């Protein structure tokens, strides 16, 4: 029972959502919207699990004074600060007149978002600029024909998409300058490759989905 029921649920849910695609009549045409709301609600519940887990691990580190306990303490403090402010601002906004959202400009939550969260995440993102360069120097090798093609395409696109490429190939007629090469690679070669990938992925997805609906893939509900 503990194993069969989930499989039955997955099967029924899968079949209903498959059929719903073809039926414009309610309630079937509402399923997509409903599911998105349901998923959103479930995710909101699930993050309690995640957050509790993170806090538990951090607390254990702090209490046992493990080597990185200060690190863990900082995690707890920053988590608590933003959560408290978020709840406070959200509550305040609901009862204000006119009501405002907790993330409107001018709220403390927005201040934290702009100056702390979004700064940190943007900078983390930006670090990739350096890693990409070091990977180029150390990892991208023309080991074989395939890798060579990858590098050549990257070469033309990187130089062709900025003015430098046309400066270098300025002696050629306009139609043969680097930016035109880049355009051609993007519009022709890239499109062909992307299409093959897209079609393949879609088919793989259909087959995986079918295996799930038919109960052939059941690891996620704890069974084989």
């Amino acid at each position, binding site marked *: 029972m503990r194993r069969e029921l989930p499989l039955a649920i997955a099967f029924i849910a899968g079949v209903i959502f498959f059929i719903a695609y073809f039926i414009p009549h309610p309630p079937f045409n509402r399923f997509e919207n409903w599911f998105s709301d349901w998923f959103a609600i*479930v995710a909101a519940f699930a993050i309690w699990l995640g957050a509790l887990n993170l806090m538990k691990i951090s607390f254990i580190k702090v209490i046992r004074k493990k080597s990185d306990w200060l690190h863990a303490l900082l995690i707890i403090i920053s988590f608590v600060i933003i959560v408290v402010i978020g709840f406070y601002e959200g509550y305040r906004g609901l009862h204000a007149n006119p009501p405002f959202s907790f993330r409107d400009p001018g709220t403390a939550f927005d201040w934290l978002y702009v100056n702390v969260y979004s700064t940190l995440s943007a900078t983390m993102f*930006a670090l990739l600029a350096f890693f*990409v360069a070091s990977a180029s120097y150390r990892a991208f090798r023309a080991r074989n024909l395939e890798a060579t093609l990858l590098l050549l395409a990257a070469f033309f696109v990187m130089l062709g998409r900025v003015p430098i490429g046309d400066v270098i190939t300025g002696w050629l007629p306009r139609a043969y300058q680097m930016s035109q090469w880049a355009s051609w690679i993007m519009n022709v070669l890239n499109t062909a*490759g992307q299409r093959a990938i897209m079609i393949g992925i879609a088919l793989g997805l259909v087959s995986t989905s079918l295996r799930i609906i038919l109960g052939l893939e059941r690891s996620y509900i704890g069974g084989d």
Partner: protein
Amino acid sequence: MGFWDVFGIWLASALTIGIISFLYRDNIFYKACEAIFIGTSAGYWFIILYWDNLYRKFWTQATDPTNPEWYVPWFGFVLGVLILTRLFNKIGWLSRWPLAFIVGAVAGLYMMIYFVSNAMVQVSSTIMPVFTGSWVDIIANTTVVLGTFCGLVYFFFSKAHTGVFGGAARVGIWFLMITFGASFGYTVMSRMSLMIGRIDFLFGTWLGMIR
């Protein structure tokens, strides 16, 4: 500019430099910034999910007497509560039900969406006359068709990559590699732009050295 604005810019600059200092090596400043980042981001998403999903999508809709579909969000609520049974060992197995529902629904739903937009429409877009227009167009069209076809051959699982079939698969992987190369080039472009954004912040917004 008020105190909080100025303080905000200084704090943001300090955090920016702290993260960038990782390039030198993993150090205490970076570690501190990283911890702040992990904490704030978990908290940020916690709050966002609470107000946007739990409050707006569940609570306001489920308790709105004028909403004719007030009962719909309650189903999501039940699923969510079942997920929380994970916290208790004895009834933890109940959490499989909502998982099964989500996985099944995702499978049924996205199967069709992807199948139509990514498989069928792309096939129909590839069906085109190749010998029309200038010779540039002819080459372009032929290449797109050839590339798509050979790319599909590469993904074919039922036949070993030998002979003519293997040849086509090889052409297919060439196309895929060029595609990845183009993606790589564009990714480099993106990453550099992001760093440019941070530099603009540090040297422009904060230090005022850029016009």
